[in-house]
C-alpha cells in the first residue's frame, strides 16, 4: 500500500524536498502555508495548497489543529512533518493517529522516549552504548546537581531534558558557576520547552560532533547509512556537514554504526532518525542524543549512498519494508554540505531578509542544491535564515573541498540588504584546520575571533 495524498507540514526547502520525492513516487501533495509564505515556491510546487494561518509559526506551522484540518479538508492520509515545527511533537503524532492520518515518523511512544534527553541517555547506557559520566536521568534539585557534579568532576554540562538543537545547554566550571547555570537552564527549559528538567554530564571541551543516519521499518529491520561529521558549527548551529568524518578511525566508524543500530532497536525505532555522538581528541565516542526526524543535512548521506531518505521514510510509514539491506549500503567518496544563510557574519550573524534580485545556484558535476527560493523571491524575516543547502560530492575529500569552493564561488545571491554566509563558508573551507580535518566544534568561534583580531590589529 502507499499513500493517497501526503500533506507536508513544513515550509521552505524541506517542504520542496519532500514534495519532489512525492512527485517521483506519484503521490499527490498538499502544501500548507502561512500568510508570509503565500508566494513561496514550495506552496506553488505542491498539487494543492492550504493557507493555514498568519506569519507567526505558533498560529500556522506550529498550530496542530490548522494542519490537521487542512489534511482532513484535502483528503490527505499522511503528514510529513519535515524538520523543526511539529516534527518532534509526539502529541501531534497522536492527534494525527486519532484523525486517521499517518504521521510520517516514529511511533509517538518512541518520540516521547527519545524526546526526553535524560531518559534516553539511561536507555542507551542500558543498550550498551557508551555515555559520559553524569546524572542518572534528570536531577531533582540544585543540591542533587551539586552531588552529581562532585562525583563526575568539573567542568560539567547542564542540559534541558526536553531540549534539542543546541538550546538549553550550559557549561559550569565549578560549584559557584553551577548554581547560576542550574537556575538559568531550568528557567529557560521551563519557559521554552514547558519542562524545566535538566540533567548533567561531564563536559568535553574539545570534541567532534558525529551523527549516524538511521532507518528502521516495521518489519524489524534497522540499519544505518554511515555517519556525518558536523563539527563546523557556531554556537551549536551547524554551518558545514560532511561525510565520511575525516577523523574517525575505521574501528570507531564501525562501532558507531553498531551502537546506533543497537540503540535504535532497543527503543523500537522506525522511520528515519539520527544518533548523535561526541568524539573526543583520543577518538573515544560517547552517545549524546537521538533526533527523531529527518535532519537538515540528510542530503550529505544521500550523496554518499544514493539512498533517497525521504522515499524510505514514506515507504516505512506506509508499512513497507526498507528497499535495501545493510549489506547493500555502499559509502562512496566524500560529500560536503554548506548552509547558505541570509545572514551577515560581519554583523553578528544578523538575519538579512529581503528580495533576491539575483539568485543563481551553481551547477555542473557533483553539485546538488536544495533551496526554497528562486530569483525574484522574497526571503521573509519571519523564519530561519537558511536560503539554500549546497551539497557536493567527489571521489575524495580534497576534491570535494575544491568542488565546494568552486560551487560557492559560482553561487550568486544578491538583493538590497541581503548578505549571505557564502564568503565566510569559502574562508572556512580554505583553512588548513579544515583541510586537515583538525577542526573541533569550537573552531568556527576561534576562527572568527582570529579574523576579528586581524581586522582590529
Amino acid at each position, binding site marked *: 500500500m502507499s499513500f493517497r495524498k501526503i500533506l507536508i507540514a513544513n515550509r521552505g526547502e524541506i517542504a520542496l524536498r519532500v514534495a519532489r520525492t512525492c512527485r517521483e513516487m506519484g503521490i499527490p501533495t498538499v502544501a500548507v502555508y502561512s500568510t508570509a509564505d503565500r508566494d513561496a515556491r514550495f506552496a506553488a510546487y505542491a498539487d494543492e495548497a*492550504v493557507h493555514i494561518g498568519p506569519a507567526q509559526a505558533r498560529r500556522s506551522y506550529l498550530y496542530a489543529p*490548522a494542519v490537521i484540518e487542512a489534511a482532513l479538508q484535502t483528503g490527505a492520509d499522511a503528514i510529513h512533518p519535515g524538520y523543526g515545527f511539529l516534527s518532534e511533537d509526539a502529541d501531534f503524532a497522536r492527534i494525527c493517529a486519532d484523525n486517521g492520518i499517518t504521521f510520517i515518523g516514529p511511533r509517538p511512544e518512541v518520540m516521547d522516549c527519545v524526546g526526553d534527553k535524560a531518559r534516553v541517555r539511561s536507555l542507551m547506557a542500558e543498550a550498551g552504548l557508551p555515555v559520559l559520566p553524569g546524572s542518572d536521568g534528570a536531577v531533582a534539585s540544585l543540591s542533587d546537581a551539586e552531588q552529581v557534579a562532585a562525583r563526575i568532576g568539573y567542568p560539567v554540562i547542564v542540559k534541558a531534558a526536553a531540549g534539542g538543537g543546541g538550546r538549553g545547554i550550559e557549561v559550569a566550571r565549578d560549584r559557584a558557576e553551577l548554581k547560576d547555570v542550574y537556575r538559568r537552564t531550568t528557567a529557560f527549559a521551563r519557559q521554552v520547552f514547558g519542562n524545566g528538567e535538566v540533567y548533567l554530564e561531564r563536559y568535553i571541551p574539545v570534541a567532534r560532533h558525529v551523527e549516524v543516519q538511521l532507518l528502521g521499518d516495521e518489519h524489524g529491520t534497522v540499519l544505518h547509512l554511515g555517519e556525518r561529521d558536523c563539527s563546523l558549527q557556531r554556537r551549536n548551529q551547524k554551518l558545514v556537514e560532511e561525510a565520511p568524518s575525516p577523523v574517525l578511525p575505521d574501528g570507531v566508524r564501525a562501532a558507531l554504526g553498531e551502537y546506533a543500530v543497537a540503540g535504535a532497536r532497543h527503543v523500537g525505532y522506525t522511520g528515519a532518525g539520527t544518533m548523535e555522538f561526541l568524539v573526543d581528541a583520543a577518538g573515544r565516542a560517547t552517545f549524546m542524543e537521538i533526533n527523531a526526524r529527518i535532519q537538515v543535512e540528510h542530503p550529505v548521506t544521500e550523496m554518499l549512498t544514493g539512498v533517497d531518505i525521504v522515499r524510505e521514510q514514506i515507504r516505512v510509514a506506509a508499512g513497507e519494508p526498507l528497499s535495501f539491506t545493510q549489506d547493500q549500503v555502499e559509502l562512496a567518496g566524500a560529500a560536503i554540505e554548506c548552509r547558505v544563510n541570509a545572514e551577515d557574519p560581519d554583523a553578528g550573524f544578523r538575519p538579512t531578509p529581503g528580495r533576491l534580485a539575483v539568485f543563481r545556484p551553481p551547477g555542473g558535476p557533483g553539485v546538488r542544491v536544495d533551496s526554497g527560493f528562486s530569483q525574484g523571491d522574497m526571503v521573509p524575516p519571519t523564519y530561519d535564515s537558511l536560503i539554500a543547502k549546497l551539497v557536493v560530492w567527489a571521489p575524495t575529500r580534497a576534491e570535494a573541498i575544491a568542488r565546494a569552493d568552486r560551487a560557492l564561488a559560482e553561487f550568486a545571491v544578491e538583493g538590497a540588504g541581503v548578505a549571505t554566509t557564502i564568503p565566510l563558508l569559502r574562508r572556512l573551507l580554505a583553512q588548513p584546520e579544515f583541510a586537515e580535518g583538525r577542526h573541533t566544534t569550537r573552531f568556527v568561534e576561534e576562527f572568527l575571533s582570529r579574523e576579528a583580531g586581524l581586522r582590529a590589529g
Partner: protein
Amino acid sequence: MDEQAAGRHADDREHAAMRLLREEAATIVKTVPGPVASVSLRLGECALKISWAAPAAEAVPAGQIVQTAQPAQPVEAAPDPSLVEVTAPLVGTFYMAPEPGAPPFVEVGDRVSEGQTIGIVEAMKLMNPVKADRAGQVAEVAVADAEPVEYGQVLVRIRVDGP
C-alpha cells in the same frame, strides 16, 4: 517668508511628496509578485504608475495603482471602502447556524452590531465563533454552509454604517 526660504520650503514639500510616492511604489512592488516592468512617478498632481511584466500566460498581476491628487482614490480594484470583510480566523469548516436546522446567525440584509457572531468555524471539533468587527448591514455571505475554509478566507461582507 523670503523667496529663498519659500523655495526651500517648496523643495522640502516636493521632497516629501516624492518620498511618499517612492515609498508607495516600494510597498506596492513588495506586495505584488513578479518582475516589475516599469515604475513612473509624477509630482505635478501626484501620480504613480507601476507595471508588472507578464512572465508567462499566468494571470498577470496587473497591479496598476494610480493616485490622482486631491481626494486620493485608488482606481484599480477599488474595493468599496464601506464594505468590510469578516475572514476565517483559522482553517476549518464554516457553519452559518449554531446547529443543523437552526436559523442562520445572519442573512444578507440583516443588521449586525460590533461583536455579534456571524458564523462558526469548526476546527478539530472545536467551535470557534466568528464575530463582526464593525456594525453594519450584511451585504454578502461568501461561503456556503458546512464548506471548508482556509485561514483568511472571506466569510461575510458587511456594509458599515457611514461616518
